[in-house]
């Protein structure tokens, strides 16, 4: 009997801990890469509950022409851009050997966000000296020697519809690229009511640039972004370290471009392979509906258990509450990102938790009907049922693991949320169905010993 009281103490402590963790104001834990602990204030919610954007980017290069490090650099680059947009909840992950998954929960300007992270953002300053009609080449797509080099390094051919120099058919020459910039920021010009980019060159590039502009006064110089000519202004005077780029940018475009320039061009061009765009209100409605459904479902189950199994049923109901609390605390601590499928997984795991209790109680009823005394019936109920509970839970855990691995495939990421909460629920169930239910039941049985021995129906028999 004493051991049941000991377990009760453990359970009460656990519950207190879980309630404390689950309270909205309380912190969860977030392990940083360097081993320190960050305290996270809220439960992580998935895109379908918070709204936002998810984009799967794929390298636009043949396999083998880039390394894993290149892909990681591209991911880091995207990460910088994402942070630059002020999206702190965002995640950027390398998937497989050619994909990057970007999740931007809660982002409000989706168009700008996706454009910012997708673009290669190769900025070039190109020599347009001696090119006839240079002023009319805005928005034209041209080939430069810089691009040519990059393409050759990957074993690719330049596209046929990129313009070359009309005089000798060669690619245009690049003077500087975005890599030579020390800083870039979007500014507003009150006179023209437009936005421009103020840039500052790195020290190493200043000399080259000064010399070039000094020798080309009166000639046009093109500013090219991702092969497209933004503008080709005439060089008015020798330029130094700081100058501006004009291109009739909107505020969004200017901010986006400045950010891309600051984080650098993507080492590998990327393209979208899949995307998800969820409105925030839709997400909020989903949360409300799911919570409502979950609460109602669980209440009905609790009521049923208490009515059908009476005293043991009450023990099971209490154990179920402990089960739920343990799960919620786990979601905050691990942390687990809650999505709609994840919530469904949790609800299904409740079904399994209840099943475990039912197995025990049905066995108990049988033993009682066979005339065994209460204590023995309880013992037999638990011992005999444990084998079934363990075997069936394990087989379900196996299947969930398969589901989890399936969920690692890029397009099926929703599935892993379901698998995680279900597995978590099953593992926690192995603890609660036996230890917690048993503790509550034995304690209730000993406290209510007199009435129980007289009124067998209280035991659900």
């Amino acid at each position, binding site marked *: 009997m004493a051991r049941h009281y000991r377990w009760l103490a453990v359970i009460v402590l656990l519950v207190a801990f879980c309630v404390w963790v689950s309270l909205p104001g309380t912190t969860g834990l977030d392990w940083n890469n360097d081993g320190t602990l960050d305290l996270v204030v809220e439960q992580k919610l998935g895109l379908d509950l918070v*709204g936002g954007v998810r984009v*799967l980017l794929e390298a636009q290069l043949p396999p083998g022409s880039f390394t894993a490090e290149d892909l990681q650099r591209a991911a880091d680059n995207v990460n910088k851009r994402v942070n630059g947009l002020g999206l702190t909840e965002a995640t950027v992950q390398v998937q497989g050997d050619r994909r990057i998954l970007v999740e931007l929960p809660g982002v409000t300007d989706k*168009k700008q966000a*996706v*454009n910012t992270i*997708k673009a290669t953002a190769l900025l070039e300053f190109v020599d347009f000296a001696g090119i006839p009609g240079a002023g009319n080449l805005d928005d034209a797509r041209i080939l430069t020697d810089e691009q040519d080099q990059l393409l050759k390094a990957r074993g690719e051919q330049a596209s046929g519809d990129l313009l070359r120099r009309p005089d000798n058919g060669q690619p245009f020459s690049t003077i500087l690229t975005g890599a030579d910039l020390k800083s870039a920021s979007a500014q507003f010009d009150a006179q023209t009511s437009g936005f421009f980019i103020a840039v500052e060159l790195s020290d190493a590039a200043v000399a080259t640039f000064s010399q070039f502009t000094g020798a080309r006064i009166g000639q046009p110089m093109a500013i090219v972004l991702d092969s497209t000519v933004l503008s080709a202004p005439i060089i008015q005077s020798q330029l130094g370290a700081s100058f501006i780029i004009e291109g009739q940018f909107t505020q969004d475009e200017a901010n986006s471009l400045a950010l891309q320039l600051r984080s650098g061009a993507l080492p590998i061009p990327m393209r*979208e*392979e*899949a*995307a*998800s*765009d*969820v*409105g*925030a*209100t*839709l997400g909020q409605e*989903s949360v409300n*509906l799911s919570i*409502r*459904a*979950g609460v*109602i*479902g669980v209440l*009905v*189950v609790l009521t*049923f*258990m208490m009515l*059908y199994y009476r005293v043991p049923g009450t023990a099971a109901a209490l154990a179920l509450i402990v089960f739920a609390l343990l799960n919620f605390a786990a979601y905050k601590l691990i942390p687990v990102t809650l999505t*709609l*499928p994840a919530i*469904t997984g949790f*609800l*299904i795991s409740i*079904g399994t938790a209840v099943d475990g209790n*039912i*197995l025990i109680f*049905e066995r108990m009823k049988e033993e009682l009907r066979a005339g065994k005394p209460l204590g023995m019936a309880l013992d037999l109920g638990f011992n005999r049922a444990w*084998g*079934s509970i363990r*075997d*069936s839970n*394990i*087989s*379900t855990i*196996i*299947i*969930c693991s*398969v*589901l989890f*691995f*399936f969920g690692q*495939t*890029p*397009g*099926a990421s*929703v*599935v892993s949320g*379901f*698998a995680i909460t279900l597995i978590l629920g099953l593992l926690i169930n192995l603890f609660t169905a036996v230890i917690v239910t048993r503790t509550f039941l034995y304690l209730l049985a000993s406290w209510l010993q007199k009435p129980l021995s007289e009124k067998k129906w209280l035991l659900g028999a």
Partner: protein
Amino acid sequence: MFNLVEKRRWFFIISAFLIVPGLLAMVYSTITTGAPFRLSIDFVGGSIYDLSFFETGITENNIREAFAEYDDRSLTVQRLTLDDGSERWSVRGSFLEQEQTEQILDNLNQFSLLDRERTQIERVSETIGAEVGRAAFFAVLAASFIVSFFIIIAFRTVPNALRYGLSAIAAMVHDVLVVMGLASIMGLFFGWEVDALFLTAVLTVLAYSVQDSIVLFDRIRENIPQYLGEPYETIVNRSIWETIHRSLATQLNAFFIMAAILLFGGETIKQFIAILFIGLVSGTYSSIFTAAPLLVAWEKGELPFMSRIGGLLPSPLPLENDGV
């Protein structure tokens, strides 16, 4: 105690009635569309737009016009009628890039103001879709194999262990076929599409089916030494009746939860829950009316080729003698 197992021929016939229409639907579907079910964009690629407008008044033609620039005849446009009088449309088209999608949304705004915060857009390229399809296929295969293996090992101490494993597997296959058949039929008649979540339903049904069979087999395993003199058929029958309360109670509880989700939960998950529910009912049905009868039939040598298999292990039970 009513002898359920005796009527096993009827149960096998009922099972056939449950499975065959589904199989026919799947075959028909494969012949006409190349896949056994209606596949969602998760498997074939494409885009699905769940559009919400602030006011009513937009027509299908408006929507088609908005998409016309980028999309083609393959566009499916459907109006979702909901009780709260909101204007919601579901559009299914081909996979487009972000810029094109934004352009389409701008076009739509010309006709009627779009409630961006209540709108959801999913886009998947064909490549990713094909990958997910392959992964789904292998997932089901892997799960089936691993679980089968596990059951055989879990029951290795029982005489004729292989039979238990194979019977549980037969029940599992039965349930998976029922669920897939249902999805196929629903696809043909109501346009239900199979997405990644459906696969989750299939694997969950698989898990429940096995769970249910294990509980029953555990009871049989326990009863065999206890009722040594009884014929196998009687033991199995008794085991069924002893575990039936538990099966029904569990089903009922699962039903409560799913009913709550169906009635009070969001739209998106309704098909998933409906399929899951049918699958769970099938899981309970198959343990009692497929797996158990199979065990008995096997023991009695009623299965044409099977009496050799599984009988290689020595059986301490006296063999059934009909009529003696």
